[in-house]
């Protein structure tokens, strides 16, 4: 036989084996192909030297290789049978973790998309200098109301206060704001002291505070929303002159969304010297406390004697800003703490591990069980964090007290009922394979409680355990118990992978 032809026929045999191997599952394929290649090699070596180059030898080799298809079909069939009789993943630990991870991914994706969540989850955007308080008249109880007049602010600034070393005033007005002279919608403009953003801190990165007086014009800081709607997000607006009402002002910068945490919602901040402050207008006063002043803060409040000219007996309260800048993580931690405190009130915290005999799962199995429980808790807490943010800031673009309350409430309820579900789920999982026990069967009669136990029996479909849950807890059978099945039960679960 022509050596080239022989080579071609040898290649054809290898193609046969390769094609047949495609029927075999990927994890078995390499082993299967290795065995057939070795067998083909030995088959060829077994040919007598006289027949080695004959057509008969090639026919024999081809017939041998064609048999590989039957073998591959057989391996494929066995594999399929095994898959059919293998216990399904329903109720397994993996399935549970898969769904929890899916929920976590969903809530995380939503959190990435929602603008309000983005702002809240970046504390660097709204951090302000420590020691700041909002001064308010003690005649008012609403912490978000403007209570101090311009005159009171100027008097306070002129007086000596040992607990305060910096003051800034702002008040809200409705004015037009536009790059030109044409009519525009009204915006909320905060007329503020020059030092407002310097006092708040953290604004240096987006506001050029040092240039505030260089041009002789008042300065204005735009909100992110106004910048985008009125100026189409044009970055060249910084440094240009715009009209705020009848006044020309130079744009200092744009405040990122969610950065403004003080009372009052403003679209722009017009920074003016104190001499321009209207004495009769009512507004807000922000104060920076000294070390002495901080020592006097009790319950987030600082008492200040105003000594103002128009009312010498008026007292002021300084309310700390900590509440407004604590961020979602602090609220979430508090909600988790509350949920764990409340958990024993709605369910038993026992894991229901008592059993009929002294048999106990191995240390590795116990460890596996605890790792599974810990993973579930970690996933639940992560879901609660992101889902509560999604719910609270679904419709909000930034901070609001309502959103904070919504986050606290949603985190609390998700953690509380989530932990309850985790404990119930854990109690109904076979200690050996962590599969949920199924096939509940009623055992006994309630009328014979004191003669024999009655309740529900559930079984592990892998044949490891039976779970007995008493219908009526008694002093001798108060909680659920596990019965570990020995090998004599094996034949009942044959074909389900017991072992």
């Amino acid at each position, binding site marked *: 036989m022509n050596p080239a032809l022989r080579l071609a026929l040898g290649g054809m045999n290898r193609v046969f084996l390769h094609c047949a191997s495609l029927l075999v599952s990927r994890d078995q394929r390499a082993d299967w192909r290795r065995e057939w*290649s070795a067998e083909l090699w030995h088959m060829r*070596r077994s040919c007598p030297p006289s027949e080695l180059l004959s057509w008969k030898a090639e026919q024999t080799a081809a017939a041998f290789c*064609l048999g590989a*298809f*039957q073998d591959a079909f*057989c391996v494929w069939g066995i594999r399929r049978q095994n898959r059919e009789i293998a216990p399904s993943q329903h109720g397994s630990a993996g399935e549970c973790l898969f769904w929890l991870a899916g929920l976590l991914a969903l809530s995380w994706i939503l959190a990435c998309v929602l603008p309000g969540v983005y702002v809240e989850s970046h504390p660097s955007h709204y951090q302000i200098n420590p020691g700041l308080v909002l001064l308010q008249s003690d005649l008012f109880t609403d912490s978000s109301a403007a209570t101090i007049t311009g005159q009171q602010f100027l008097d306070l600034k002129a007086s000596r206060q040992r607990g305060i070393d910096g003051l800034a005033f702002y008040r809200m007005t409705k004015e037009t704001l536009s790059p030109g002279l044409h009519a525009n919608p009204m915006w909320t403009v905060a007329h503020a002291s020059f030092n407002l953003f310097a006092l708040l801190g953290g604004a240096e990165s987006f506001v050029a505070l040092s240039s505030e007086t260089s041009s002789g014009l008042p300065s204005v800081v735009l909100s992110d929303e106004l910048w985008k709607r009125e100026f189409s997000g044009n970055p060249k607006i910084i440094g240009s002159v715009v009209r705020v009402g009848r006044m020309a002002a130079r744009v200092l910068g744009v405040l990122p969304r969610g950065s403004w945490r003080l009372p009052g919602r403003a679209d722009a901040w017009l920074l003016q010297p104190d001499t321009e402050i209207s004495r009769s207008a009512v507004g807000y006063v922000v104060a920076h406390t000294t070390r002495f002043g901080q020592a006097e803060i009790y319950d987030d409040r600082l008492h200040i004697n105003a000594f103002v000219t128009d009312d010498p007996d008026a007292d002021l309260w300084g309310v700390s800003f900590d509440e407004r800048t604590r961020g979602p993580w602090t609220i979430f931690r508090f909600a988790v703490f509350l949920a764990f405190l409340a958990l024993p009130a709605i369910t038993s915290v026992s894991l229901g591990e008592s059993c009929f005999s002294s048999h106990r799962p191995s240390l590795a199995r116990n460890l596996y069980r605890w790792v599974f429980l810990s993973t579930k808790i970690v996933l639940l807490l992560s879901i609660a964090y992101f889902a509560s943010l999604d719910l609270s800031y679904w419709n909000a673009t930034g901070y609001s007290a309502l959103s904070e309350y919504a986050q606290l409430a949603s985190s609390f309820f998700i953690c509380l009922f989530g932990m309850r579900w985790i404990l119930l789920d854990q109690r109904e999982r076979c200690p050996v394979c962590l599969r949920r026990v199924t096939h509940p069967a009623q055992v006994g009669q309630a009328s014979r409680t004191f003669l024999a136990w009655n309740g529900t029996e559930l079984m592990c479909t892998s044949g490891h355990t039976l779970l007995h849950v008493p219908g009526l807890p008694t002093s001798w059978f108060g909680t659920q118990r596990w019965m570990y099945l020995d090998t004599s039960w094996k034949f009942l679960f044959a074909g389900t992978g017991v072992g």
Partner: protein
Amino acid sequence: MVSQMKLSHTAAMILQAIDTGCVYGFSIMEMTGLPSGTVYPAMRRLERDELISSRWERQSIADAEQRPARKYYKLTAAGRVTLEGSRKRYPLLQRMIPSEEAKSL
């Protein structure tokens, strides 16, 4: 139960061949005269039923002899019991493929 499993004549021949020392696929083909498309699938099923078990030859041995490593098969305890039952069922089995002891007699 496994010990009461009734084998086909072909499967019994393959078990008998393995028992006589034909421990890899091609040697079983030679001993029984069955084609590869019959022998290998039958061995897969016997292995699935835990009547035979397989192991790969050490690569160093194959390298020393300058050939590819082979997969060897041997009877399990259950396979031996089943083979005993099959010999009673197929009396000619041992005559067709005599065991090493029978050959020495």
